[in-house]
């Protein structure tokens, strides 16, 4: 069906997915994959796999020294394996019955003013906890992402908390408005606010590959790619995806590898060729510490309790 009403979203109630479309954007929310499966802007795909909550940043040497991995290592498993327990669709304020055979009742494309898709994830940690990721799409195609972590007593401190987006191909560059250089909650006094462009996504060459590339206090971020996995795409023009703060600034890193890939390498040459873009948008980041590398923990203010709730949000444009 041709798109006709710019003031409405075109919603497709499929059997496996929910399609949300508008002028210049096409989003697919998957029930089977348990997440946002496709973000297409102007015909160009931005996702390789569904975004997931992330609980792990690669260890630093200081983390190893303070035995943070022994205390909090179980978060690595939660980062790698997570269960999607529930998917809810809310259209114009109404909770929908999106699964077959109830979806037969929609009878065709549906026009909506606002769609919310809410995924509830349960961690494999012991005790388990839940994360609710809620995507709110307005008629302009903006996706507001609200992320809610439920604190549970007995869970060890978190290295980070955020959302991980894996893009199909390596980005050319990114631009952001925030702090200069690589910053952490306990290492950002020397940074200057400004707009910065980063065209080399490679890991910072610490002797042992480890957490790197964090940018705190970010207002917005634009990632530019021109390559695609789409065999029929003939255009190679650069495309840009923009992430904006919602109420508060966010932290992010944009690298070619996931934390667990980085964790596995003792040298940079052991990492596979850089082929994807791993964007993590964080609501909470642990500091790196610095007193010593054999026992001292990060200062109290820069550690993340997993026993308290964490909420943050951002917007994908």
């Amino acid at each position, binding site marked *: 069906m041709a798109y006709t009403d710019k003031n409405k979203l075109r919603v497709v109630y499929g059997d496996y997915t929910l399609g949300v479309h508008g002028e210049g954007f096409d989003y697919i929310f998957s029930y089977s994959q348990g997440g946002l499966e496709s973000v297409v802007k102007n015909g160009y795909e931005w996702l390789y796999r569904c975004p997931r909550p992330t609980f792990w940043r690669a260890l630093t040497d200081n983390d190893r020294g303070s035995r943070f991995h022994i205390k909090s290592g179980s978060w690595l498993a939660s980062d790698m394996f997570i269960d999607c327990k529930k998917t809810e669709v809310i259209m114009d304020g109404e909770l929908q019955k999106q699964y077959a055979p109830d979806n037969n009742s929609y009878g065709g494309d549906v026009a909506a003013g606002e769609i919310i898709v809410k995924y509830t994830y349960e961690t494999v940690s012991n005790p388990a906890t839940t994360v609710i990721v809620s995507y709110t799409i307005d008629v302009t195609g903006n996706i507001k992402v609200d992320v809610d972590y439920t604190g549970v007593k007995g869970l060890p401190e978190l290295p980070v908390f955020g959302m991980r987006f894996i893009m199909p191909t390596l980005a050319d560059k990114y631009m952001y408005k925030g702090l200069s250089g690589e910053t952490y909650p306990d*290492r950002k006094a020397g940074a200057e606010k400004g707009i910065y462009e980063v065209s080399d996504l490679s890991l910072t060459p610490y*002797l042992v590959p480890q957490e790197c590339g964090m940018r705190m206090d970010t207002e917005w971020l634009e990632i530019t790619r021109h390559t695609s996995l789409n065999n029929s795409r003939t255009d190679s023009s650069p495309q840009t995806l923009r992430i904006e703060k919602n109420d508060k600034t966010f932290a992010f890193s944009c690298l070619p590898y996931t934390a667990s890939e980085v964790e596995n390498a003792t040298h940079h040459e052991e990492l596979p060729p850089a082929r994807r873009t791993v964007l993590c948008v964080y609501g909470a980041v642990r500091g790196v510490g610095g007193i010593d590398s054999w026992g001292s923990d990060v200062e109290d203010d820069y550690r993340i309790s997993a026993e308290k709730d964490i909420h943050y949000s951002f917007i994908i444009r």
Partner: protein
Amino acid sequence: MNADMKWLDNPEVFRVNQLDAHSDHCYYMDYTDMEKSDNPLTQSLNGQWEFAFSKNVMDRPENFYEENFDASSFDKIMVPGHIELAGYDKIRYINTMYQWEGKEYHRGAYSMGSTGDEAGMFSEAEYNPVGSYIKRFDLSEQMRKKKIRICFEGVEEAMYLWLNGQFVGYAEDSFTPSEFDLTPFIREKGNVLAVQVHKMSTAAFLEDQDFFRFFGIFRNVTLKAVPEVHLEDVWFQPTLNKDNASGRVSVKIKVTAPEGKKVAAHFVLKDRENNQVAEDNITLEEKDGSLVGVMDTEVGSVKAWDNHCPYLYHAYVELRGEDGEILEIIPYDIGFRRLEMIDKVIYLNGKRLVITGVNRHEWSAKTGRSISMDEMTADIDCMIRNNINAVRTCHYPDQIPWYYLCDKAGIYVMAETNMESHGTFQKLGTIEPSCSIPCSIPQWRAAVVDRARSNFETFKNHTAILFWSLGNESYAGDDIEAMNTYFKEKQDGRFVHYESSFYDRNYEETISDVESRMYAKPYEVEEYLNNNPKKPYLLCEYMHDMGNSMGGLGTYMKLIDKYEMYHGGFIWDFIDQALLVKDEVTGKEVLRYGGDFDDKPSDYEFSGNGIVFADRKEKPAMQEVRYYYGLYR
């Protein structure tokens, strides 16, 4: 005298026929020579040498120093350089462990009741590699008919020297110059110099620094022609008066000359624009076979030297004969400053001293601890760019040019003696000094005091040096105390630093002018300063910048505002120690660290703690250092 391999085992033998340590001044025959880029009185022996590697003393080519020795089976090696990096012995990185860990049971000679002189520990060891070096040379024309000395600026870790088949001398202490007189054996042409270098000797116990373990001739080798009348030693002591506007300078000199020769010394001081601001004359007097004298001169108006304005004056000592003819000229750039401790607070030129410092190992990813002038100047530039105002030469004296660069750049220096015996008293992270070296063992005392002497005598004229450091992590005891006494007796106005006084408070008064700690947490610094502190406080190592680190620097910096007696500290450390090698899989150049050379046991990546990467690129954390150090320097 003949060389004796048993010297390797004996802590009481550490220098044989070595010339006395002396100031690191250059000398010229006249002002024209001084303008030349190459001093005609020196001849470098750097370059290709003949070389043979042996795994121990027994396997060495014993007679290789003989003139008619057939060296056709020898390889070629570049000097300076490390033998391991030339591919002979295994590259190895370890921290506190000794090289024999898990392979041989060793306790230092006389270190416990049950140990004796431990004869044979190194001379008969199955593993104690030997490098046999041969250099054939002719003396350059300008050098002929003069007394000839040879200076090895750095040989790790023990060396025997022969010239033309004759034994010349023996040296330990890898990081200070070792000079020998070659005059009795030298020829104009066809000289055969032979150096036998040992990876380990008793010096190994004193050189347990946390670094790659190398051996070989790794710094310059230079022949020096000595004029008939020669200034052996000079000690400039410029001081800034309380008014911060005038000063005085004392110049103490020691000259060798033919017997009965009358020599006068003329001292001239010029500012940067070459205006003469002071001069003095003295006729030298004979004492103990040398000619000596002291000049003490007022300088009416001087600019002070400090980190913000490192103003250096050009000092000259001219040695003149009876007819006033110039026999030798010594130029040296000196700065006027005043160091004081008032009410347990250190002041430089009347201002409280705040150290925004860093520890620096000499390091190159390609050549290890054999580094170039370009790398040194790059390090100075990096320090200036990032508001670093002080450097601790951890944990040994650096190459001589480094101190001149620091004078010029206004980088304060904590000049550390080549000394670390960490592995003898710290085991698995706990302090366990049952067989600590040197401790209070009499047989080790002379060796460690000699290390202090070499450090002091060589570098005493460098304005940038504010602290002498006895070494690093060598526990406490009478021997360390004797090093402190040596420095204090010089009364040069500088302070003596040693970290380990807190190990044994009995030595608190006698081994350091400052309370120095490493890696004390901010609250521990405050604990000391809030409880009747006896001394000003500094952190000789803090902010361990291993990998992605430097979080929380601000907490330490705020202590500078809170406590007058807290003087800041030296970040650990400047540059990642890692080696650039070819990846065995991809063929690309990659950085490797401990354990990457089948070297076990190892301390792996623990050598990567720099604020710059091994290729000297700044780590992301540098902007934090630049910011905070900029607020306080």
